[in-house]
C-alpha cells in the first residue's frame, strides 16, 4: 500500500478507537476526552481528503469550543458526584441497531461501482485541491443564502441557550 493509505489507516484507527472510548467508557470525563481525540482524528481525515480549511475549522470549532462547552456542562451538572451505570438497560438492542446501520451502509458502499482511480485516457486522476479563496468566494456568492440562514441559526441558538440556561428570576 502507498504511504497515503498507511497514514489513512492510522488516522482511521485513532478515530474509531476514540469513538469506541466515547461510547464504552465508564467515566464521563474520560468519554469527553476520548471525544476530543476522535474529533481531532477526524480533522486528520479531512486533511487526507484535501480539505485543509475544513480541518482547521474542525479543530477550532470542535476541539476548541464544543468540547469546552461539554466539559462545562459536566461541571455544572455535577456529573462526577453521581456514580451510576452509564449504560442503560437496552444496550443489546442498541448494539444491534448500531451494527445493523453500519452493516447496511457498508454493504451499500461496497456494492456500488465508484469511479476508479484512472480516467478514460488511462491516466491516474490527480487530487484536486480547492484553493481557500475559491471556497470563500463561493461561500458568499453561490452559497450566500444558506450562509445567512446559518448565521440566523447561530443567533437563535445563542439566544435560546441564554434564555434556557438563565433560569427564573431570583434563582
Amino acid at each position, binding site marked *: 500500500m502507498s504511504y497515503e493509505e498507511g497514514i489513512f489507516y492510522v488516522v482511521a484507527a485513532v478515530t474509531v478507537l476514540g469513538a469506541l472510548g466515547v461510547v464504552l467508557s465508564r467515566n464521563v470525563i474520560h468519554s469527553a476526552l476520548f471525544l476530543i481525540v476522535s474529533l481531532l482524528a477526524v480533522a486528520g481525515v479531512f486533511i487526507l481528503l484535501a480539505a485543509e480549511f475544513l480541518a482547521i475549522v474542525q479543530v477550532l470549532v470542535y476541539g476548541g469550543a464544543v468540547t469546552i462547552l461539554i466539559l462545562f456542562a459536566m461541571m455544572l451538572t455535577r456529573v462526577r458526584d453521581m456514580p451510576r451505570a452509564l449504560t*442503560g438497560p437496552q444496550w443489546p438492542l*442498541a448494539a444491534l441497531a448500531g451494527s445493523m446501520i453500519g452493516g*447496511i*451502509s457498508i454493504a451499500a458502499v461496497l456494492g456500488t461501482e465508484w469511479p476508479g482511480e484512472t480516467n478514460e485516457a488511462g491516466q491516474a486522476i490527480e487530487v484536486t485541491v480547492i484553493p481557500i479563496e475559491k471556497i470563500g468566494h463561493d461561500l458568499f456568492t453561490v452559497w450566500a443564502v444558506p450562509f445567512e440562514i446559518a448565521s440566523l441559526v447561530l443567533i437563535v441558538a445563542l439566544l435560546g441557550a441564554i434564555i434556557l440556561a438563565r433560569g427564573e428570576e431570583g434563582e
Partner: protein
Amino acid sequence: MGMEQAWLIPAVPAAAFVVLTLVGKYLPRKGDWVAIGAIAASFILFLFVLVDLLDVVDEPGFVGGEKSWEWVSFGSFEIRLGFFTDEITIVMLAVVSFISLLVQIYSVGYMRGDPRYGWYFAVMSLFSAAMLTLVLADNLLLLYAAWEGVGLGSFLLIGFWWEKQSAAEAAKKAFTTTRIGDVGLLIGILMLWNEAGTFDISEIFEFAEAGGYGTTYLTAAVLFLFAGAAGKSGQFPLHVWLPDAMEGPTPVSALIHAATMVVAGVYLVARMLPLFELADPIALNVVTALGLTTVLISATMGLAATDIKRVIAYSTLNSLGLMMVALGSHSVTAAMFYLFVHAFFKALLFLGAGSVIHATEKQELDELGGLASKMPLTTVTFAVGTLAMIGIIPLSGFWAKDEILHVAEVNQNAGVYALMLLSVFITSLFMTRLFIRTFLFNSRDPESRDHAHDAEPTMTVPLLILAVPAAIGGFVVFSGVGEAMGFPGGFGEFVYLEHAEEFVFHWDIVVLSTVLGVGGMVVGYIFWANQAEPARRMGEMFRPVYNVLYNRYYIDEFYQFVIDRIVLVGSAAISWYDRNIVNDTGVDGSAGLTGFAGWGLKFTSTGKLPNYALAISAGVIILALVFLVVKA
C-alpha cells in the same frame, strides 16, 4: 275550476291537519272550525269537480280527468303524484266529503268537553285528506301511501281514549290486522309494477289488456290486492278488528267504520275490476266466497251481540260482504250503488246510536229500551236507517240490495243466491232486534231512560240531514231522476264497467226480498218484544249455538292462540339473537376489543427517551434494509 283542480279536495283538509297540529291549541274553540271549514271547502270543491265532469262525461272516449306531477325520478324509474277523476271517483268523493262534513259537525256536540278536543279534529282532517287522496290517486303507489295514511288515522281515532286499556288494544288490533292485508296489497302492487314498469293505473290496464301479464301471474297479483282490500273492508278472515274498533268515539265509527275507510277495499276492487276480469275466474270466486262468508257470519253474530255499537258494526260487516259479492258477480254498478246509499244509512245508524249513548250513558242492549217517547227524533231517524238496512221499499237500501241480489242471481250459482236470500232474512232479524231492544217497550233501566232526551241541534241536525238520502237516495237509480239532475241517466248509466245498465224492475227479486225482510221483522217482533221471552227460551234451548255466536265463532281466540304459539315464539327467538349476538357480541364486543387494544397499546408510551429513539432507529433501519434489498 274543474277536474284539473281536483287535487285541492284532499289538499285543504291536509293543510287543516298541519295547522291544527301546530297551533290548534291556541285557536279559539281549539280550531274545530278550521277542520269543519276545510271539509266544507272540500265538499264545495267536489261540487265544482262534479259539474265539470258532467260536462264532458258524455263525450265518446271519455275516461277521466287527470292531473299529475313528477315526484321522484331517477333513470327510468319514476313516481308520480297524480289525480284521476272518473265516475267511480266522483261517487266516492261525494260520499267521503259529505259524510265527513256531517260527522264533524256532529262531533262538535258529541265530543264537547273532551280534553283532547283539538287533536280529535286534527286527526279527523288527516283522515279525510288521506281518504280523499286514496280515491283520487291515479297510481298505485300514491294509493298505497294514502291507504296507509287512512290506516294511521283509523288507529289514532280508535285509540283516541287510549287511557282505556280496551281502546288501546282495539287500536293495535285494527292496525295489525289491516297491516296483514296491507302486506298483501303491497306485494300485489309490486307484482303489477314489476311486469308493467309503471304504477299508473290506466297504463297497467292497457298493459294487461294487451296481454302483458300471464294469467296465473295476474291472478296471483290480483288476489294479493284483494288481501289488502279484505283487511281494510273487514272480510273474513280479517274481519276481527271491526267490532273491536267500536271502542273509538261514535262519530269516528260513523265516519270511518261505516261510510269511508272500510269501503276503501270495495273501492280498490271496483277500481281494479278490469284486472280481475282478465284474471282467472278463481279470483272473483274468492272474492265472492269471502264476501258471502262475511255476510253470513256477521249476520249470525249480530243476533247474539249485546252492545248497540257492536250490532251496528256487524251490520257494517254484512254490508261490506254484500258489496264484495256484488263485485264478485262482475258488477261495479251494484257495488258502488250500495256503497253510495249504505254510507248514508249506516252513518245515520251510528250517529243515532251515538245520540242514545250520549243521552243515557249506556251501550248495552240489556240496559236500554223504551227510548221512543223520550227521544222521538232519534227514534224516527234510526227507524229510517234500520228499514233502509233491511231493505224495505221504497227506502234507499231496498233498491241497492235488490241490485246486488239481481247480479248475484244472474252471475252466480243457485247456492250463492240462496244464501244471499237467507242473509236478507237474518239481517232483518237482527236489525229488528236492535231497534226493538233500544227504543221500544219498557226500559230495563228506568233511571237512565228518565233523563234521556234528544240531543242538541249540532247532533240532531246531521241525523235529519242523513235521513233524507237514506230514505230517498235510492231513486237515483232511475234514468229519469238521473237525467233531471244532469247525469247521463240513472246510477247504472253513470257508473258501470263495460255497459251502461239501465235500471229494470225485477219483480221476482222484489217480492222475495220484501217477503224475507218483512218476515224477518215480524219474527223479530215476536221474539224480542216486551220481555223477549221467546228469544230467551230459544237461547236456552240452543245454548251451545248461542255461545258460539256470542263468542264470535271463537275466531279471536284462535288468532290469539296462533299469535302466542307461533308469532311470539318466533319473536322471542329473534330478540334473543338480537340481544346476545348482535348487541353483546357484535356491538359491545367490538367496542370492548377496541378498548382492550387501546389499553394494551398504552404500554408503548413509556416516557423514556431511549425507548423512543430505539423505535425511530428501528424504523430507519427497516427502511434502509428495504432500499438495500430492492435497490430502489
